[in-house]
């Protein structure tokens, strides 16, 4: 056992900190720090800045722009990025479809998509969920039927995050309705400008528009937009969802938000109230335990393979993320009810973050994974 970072890792951390705090536009980082909404342009600009330095997709294979970093270095990269209020690279691109294409895509797909995916010249959406296929994703019904070289797609996706910005959408579609439900699914890449693709907004409880329904009506998708083999979609989806869960505990940004809540509580004198002080101390401690768990996981995990405890990170990470947003509403007190300052923004943020324990495998699903695959129950 050894607590200190090696000299090399310490230097690495300094490099990251220096980069994130000087090379990503200050006004974008200010927005993140204050919990204001980012525009599409902000997210693109920030990812481009990372990509230009080779820091947008460090976990990809080196030949497609990845860095040959250790798990610990990736962790440091991620934490420093969040601590500096840098918007993380678009997860749909860098954590989800990118690694999938690198692993399962044809050479043509890699050639065509990987570079613009890393640079965010293509904005990807995730088209997995459907109205009747949520936690039970495999029961999805959107169908793709072969017609000549093309696939003809019909159906409806829902909850498509930021689909209003999407250029392309990676989807799971049913290509064989007659076999066990997991066995008849394929992954298709669909150009969202094709005729028959329609994106409809869904308003969430915070009043914002970040999710959409995506409807497909006789959409003709060229045959070579299939990822991997026909009916291999479930395997690919499991690979993708496994990646989705890694790094989901946003320890860095939760720490930053907790520090912010603490600072605001201090400024208003609230922190001298022992109840608030105790609440902050307790959250800090839980977060410390979570951060150490994340470190233990990255330090000990076999290269590449997600640690079985990544469900712990997802579960506890979202709970703490939500708890800190709740604390901030309480710090705002009556000002959280409405108005135009940070206090008024705290309530929509708190409400919006209820999503964190629902998507990406709900916390109930994570408990199921822990119970089944870790505890063998």
């Amino acid at each position: 056992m050894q607590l200190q970072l090696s000299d090399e890792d310490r230097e690495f951390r300094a490099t990251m900190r220096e980069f994130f705090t000087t090379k990503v536009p200050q006004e974008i980082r200010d927005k993140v720090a204050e919990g204001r909404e980012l525009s599409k342009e902000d997210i693109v600009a920030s990812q481009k800045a990372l990509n230009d330095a080779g820091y947008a997709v460090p976990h990809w294979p080196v030949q497609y722009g990845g860095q040959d970093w250790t798990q610990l270095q990736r962790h440091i990269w991620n934490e420093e990025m969040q601590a500096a209020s840098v918007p993380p690279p678009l997860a749909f691109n860098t954590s989800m479809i990118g690694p999938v294409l690198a692993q399962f895509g044809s050479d043509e797909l890699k050639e065509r998509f990987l570079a613009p995916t890393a640079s965010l010249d293509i904005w990807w959406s995730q088209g997995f969920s459907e109205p009747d296929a949520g936690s039970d994703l495999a029961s999805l019904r959107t169908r793709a039927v072969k017609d000549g070289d093309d696939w003809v797609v019909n159906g409806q996706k829902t909850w498509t995050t930021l689909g209003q910005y999407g250029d392309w959408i990676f989807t799971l579609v049913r290509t064989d309705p007659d076999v066990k439900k997991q066995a008849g699914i394929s992954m298709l890449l669909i150009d969202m400008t094709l005729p028959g693709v329609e994106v409809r907004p869904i308003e969430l409880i915070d009043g914002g528009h970040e999710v959409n329904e995506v409807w497909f009506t006789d959409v003709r998708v060229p045959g070579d937009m299939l990822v991997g083999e026909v009916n291999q979609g479930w395997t690919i989806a499991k690979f993708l969802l496994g990646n989705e869960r890694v790094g989901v505990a946003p320890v860095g940004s939760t720490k930053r938000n907790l520090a912010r809540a603490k600072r605001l509580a201090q400024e208003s004198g609230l922190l001298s109230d022992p109840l608030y002080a105790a609440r902050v101390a307790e959250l800090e401690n839980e977060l410390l335990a979570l951060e150490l768990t994340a470190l233990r996981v990255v330090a000990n995990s076999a290269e590449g393979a997600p640690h079985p405890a990544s469900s712990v990170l997802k579960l506890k990470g979202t709970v703490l993320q939500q708890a800190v947003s709740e604390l901030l509403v309480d710090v705002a007190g009556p000002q959280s009810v409405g108005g135009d300052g940070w206090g008024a923004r705290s309530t929509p943020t708190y409400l919006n973050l209820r999503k964190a324990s629902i998507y990406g495998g709900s916390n109930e699903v994570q408990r199921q994974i822990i119970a089944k695959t870790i505890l063998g129950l």
Partner: protein
Amino acid sequence: MDFEYTDDQDSLREAARALLTKAYGDYGKRRAVTQADPGYSTETWSRLAELGGLGLPFSEEDGGAGAGWIEAAVVAQELGRVVAPEPYVVSVGLAGRLVADAGTAEQRAEVLGAIASGERLVAVAHDEPGRRWSPTAGDTKATQDGEGWTIEGVKEPVVQGGVADLFVVSAVLPEGGTGLFLVEGDASGVERESFPAADGGRVARVTFTAATAVPLGSAGENRTATIATALDTARILAANEAVGIMEVALRMTTEYLKSRKQFGVTLNTFQALTFRAADMYVSLELATSITQWATMVLEDGDAAAISAAARRVALQVSRAGRHIGQEAIQLHGGIGMTAEYAVGAYTTRLTTLDHLFGDGTYALGALADGVGGYDAVDPLS
């Protein structure tokens, strides 16, 4: 000891429920109302007035219905059940209580009569930026100017301050202490900027610049205790609204668990979920009991008893509201996050109610302060 409502109270509940179901039983109507200014329905407000709902706690001489706070609480519960956006608790509970306790006979008749008839919307301009649920004013100052008074300062958030006809304003008196004043909504020196609130209602920042004010009751009197009791009253009424909200949020959740299918079965097949719903029910029952108790104290008790009850109910209902609100969304999954589906609005309103008059931690702080001063808590003493 009896937690049953009387026949009259039951009839009042039925009438209020009929009216409010007509107005908001279809959640889409509630949404349409909150999407447009002023964020509540003046028509529904008038109907509530016709029903006698807006004057329940005020005496008949003052133009009220001469009923009581238990009756007002019944209406608040019903408003909660449909997450009605009408500013009942602040207008009737807070503004009404301030005027009833501090106003002259004339002011009571005029203002409470106007509240009861629905003629005028009365808002309370008490909160100030950076202050938390204090019964005193901070930077807002009242100045005596010959015969009259003027007010200087910024109040925020003022629920429905953008459209209020009349304000009850708290301000620091020249000699110290906090006084209460009436300021007309259209008086010169009153500037208001209205914002949509998180719960779909509207709140305003109201800036008073040498605004003409009339003292509520005798001039120059320190009203801190009156304000404290009015805030306690509002908290207890808000708890009643929250109970109505929580009851329906739980019911929506259990119904959803019975109808939503995943993995080929309805969600109530999963014990992981049904036990959570059971825990929500436990929270609801405890919150209901303490709310009914606090409402009875509000009706019968003195200011000290009301204050103690308000703290206890605030703590319990704050915790219950968060538990039930958060679980209601979680057990619904994604659909619970959408504005079009009602359950999120229930959680949103619970969040707002929790922060309007003092949240659970605030109440807990006050309770903890005094915890060494008695042996055991006895609700019947």
